[in-house]
């Protein structure tokens, strides 16, 4: 932040105005998360008090223990949903990357008839809102007998995730100089070896970025999961945590604790893998 403001020309006044704006923006994005965390530490009674307790007078981790206790019924369900979400998201991501890597490479390197058309056809899917495909896909899944299976979700998420993954990865492959492969092929590598030994490692940041994107998309998806799955033991987290809403009362602390636990995998993914986003690997490969 400071380097940006220092870099900018303009007077002190603007600089401070910029900082204040950024602080405001930061507060705006962090507030809901902070409130989520605070509420998750309250008892059900404390959560409903007015005026609200900004900090719980008796902070408790009970809500978390309840969710993570496999012997209780709440914990059993929650861990089931968590596992379902993880399974669907991981499989979706692995499949998306496995298909997108060769596809993106082909789009980047080969000139074949219909290449441009195919590439835009791939993207066409993402130009429509998800709801448009809800009913057609549901009918399709019913015909295929996939309703109430995780397969229906994985297939659906791939139709969203794959085009994006291909598009993202193609950008990475476009930036890797073709001479590197040519050099490898002259040095004795087959086409496949040139790709596997030279190009693939260089596109690792791209593959990781794509994986995160695909994982988050699947992890957070709600409407298809809500439509395709009706059995409790199949549900994924976004749908499953609705059980904290009931007709009579909403268990706000429980809901917030579940939401917090749900956001952990995404945050961890980002923290562990963020260095790959910023690594400029091809630097020094060629003279620009």
């Amino acid at each position, binding site marked *: 932040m400071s380097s940006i403001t220092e870099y900018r020309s303009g007077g002190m006044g603007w600089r401070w105005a910029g900082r204040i704006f950024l602080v405001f923006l930061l507060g705006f994005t962090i507030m809901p998360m902070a409130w989520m965390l605070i509420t998750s530490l309250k008892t059900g009674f404390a959560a409903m008090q007015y005026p609200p307790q900004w900090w719980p007078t008796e902070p408790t981790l009970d809500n978390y223990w309840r969710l993570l206790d496999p012997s209780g019924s709440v914990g059993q369900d929650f861990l089931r949903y968590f596992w379902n979400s993880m399974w669907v998201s991981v499989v979706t991501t692995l499949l998306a990357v496995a298909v997108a890597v060769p596809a993106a490479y082909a789009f980047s390197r080969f000139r074949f008839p219909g290449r441009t058309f195919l590439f835009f056809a791939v993207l066409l899917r993402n130009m429509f809102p998800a709801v448009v495909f809800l009913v057609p896909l549901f009918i399709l899944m019913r015909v295929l007998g996939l309703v109430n299976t995780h397969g229906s979700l994985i297939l659906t998420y791939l139709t969203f995730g794959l085009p994006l993954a291909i598009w993202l990865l193609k950008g990475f492959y476009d930036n890797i*100089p073709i*001479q*590197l492969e040519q050099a*490898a092929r*002259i040095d004795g590598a087959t086409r496949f070896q040139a790709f596997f030994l030279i190009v693939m490692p260089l596109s690792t940041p791209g593959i990781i970025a794509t994986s995160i994107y695909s994982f988050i998309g699947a992890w957070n998806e709600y409407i298809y999961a809500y439509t395709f799955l009706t059995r409790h033991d199949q549900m994924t987290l976004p749908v499953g945590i609705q059980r904290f809403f009931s007709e009579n009362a909403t268990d706000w602390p429980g809901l917030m604790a579940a939401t917090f636990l749900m956001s952990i995998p995404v945050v961890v993914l980002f923290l562990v893998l963020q260095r790959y986003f910023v690594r400029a690997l091809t630097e*020094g490969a060629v003279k620009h």
Partner: protein
Amino acid sequence: MAQVVLKDVVKNYGPVYAVNRVSLTVEDGEFVALVGPSGCGKTTTLNLVAGLISMSGGAVTIGDRDVTNLDPKDRDIAMVFQNYALYPQKSVYKNLAFPLQMRKLPKEEIDKKVRDAAKTLDITHLLERKPRELSGGQQQRVALGRALVREPRVFLMDEPLSNLDAKLRVQMRSEIKRFHQDLGATIIYVTHDQLEAVTMSDKMAVMNGGFLQQYDSPANVFAHPVNMFVASFVGSPAMSLVPLTAASKGTQVVLTSPEGWEMPLSDANGRKALSATSNKVVLGGRHSTIKVHKVQVPGAVPGKVYTVEPTGDVTFAQVFVSGATVNVSVPPSFALRPDEPVFLEFDQDRMHLFDGETEMALRL
């Protein structure tokens, strides 16, 4: 090392011919420069020899093997790229070792060869570094090292010096030349810089529009260009070309200009001029063969100074002659001013005449 033969090599993309029926033989141990303006097909030709792109027609032999349909890896060649194409994730050592690993050499042998190559190129102290930690000149050496570590039959080089700054380029030019002499390597070298081609190569292949224009020693290409393109491409400053009309006047042949002046030709030149397909003849002269006079002398043609460029040893000037620009050189003491009228005397023995229709050199 080996001989390389290209026979009627063609590469076309639909109706566009990047390389058109190119045939040439690179003898064992020869340094051949493929030279021409950008888009002339020189890099495509090199890539065809390397096998990086498929041929539309013709054949390539390296040594006694027809490699036309072989993969690059099976052609036993090495290539140095314009952007070096060093593997960025690998250390210099691993960059040099890669071609040997691909050929499954034993570890000790790889180590020995890598260290020998590094020693030859004076990059031993860089072996543990990554390419991005090297200067342009060092990267260039590593690229050269990766090519020579394998002792290939042919070295292919695609504008290897064009990313270096002027001073380093001159230095690396002589190093590559010595590298060629020491190893007796067969080298095919692509460049757009005719000076590089002239100074480094045993033979130069001048290309234009996908066609091989002339293939000869630099001295012969310089002295006897086959057509107007080669004449104007090789040499610095370029050969000047003046379009004129040939006419017989009694027993003599003269070149006439639209302005009305005449330039008598020697017997030999006269016969050349008359052999043209029409009376259109283009007069060609290099700056070193044109004398500049301030007064009219017999046989000299009138012109007007356009620009004067002193370089220290010699002053170059551009002179307008009958609508064309003629490059001349004079001693620094010979003061020329822009717009000054001058008279140019072309050396009859060293002038060039071209057919105005076919653009080919007129020869007896």
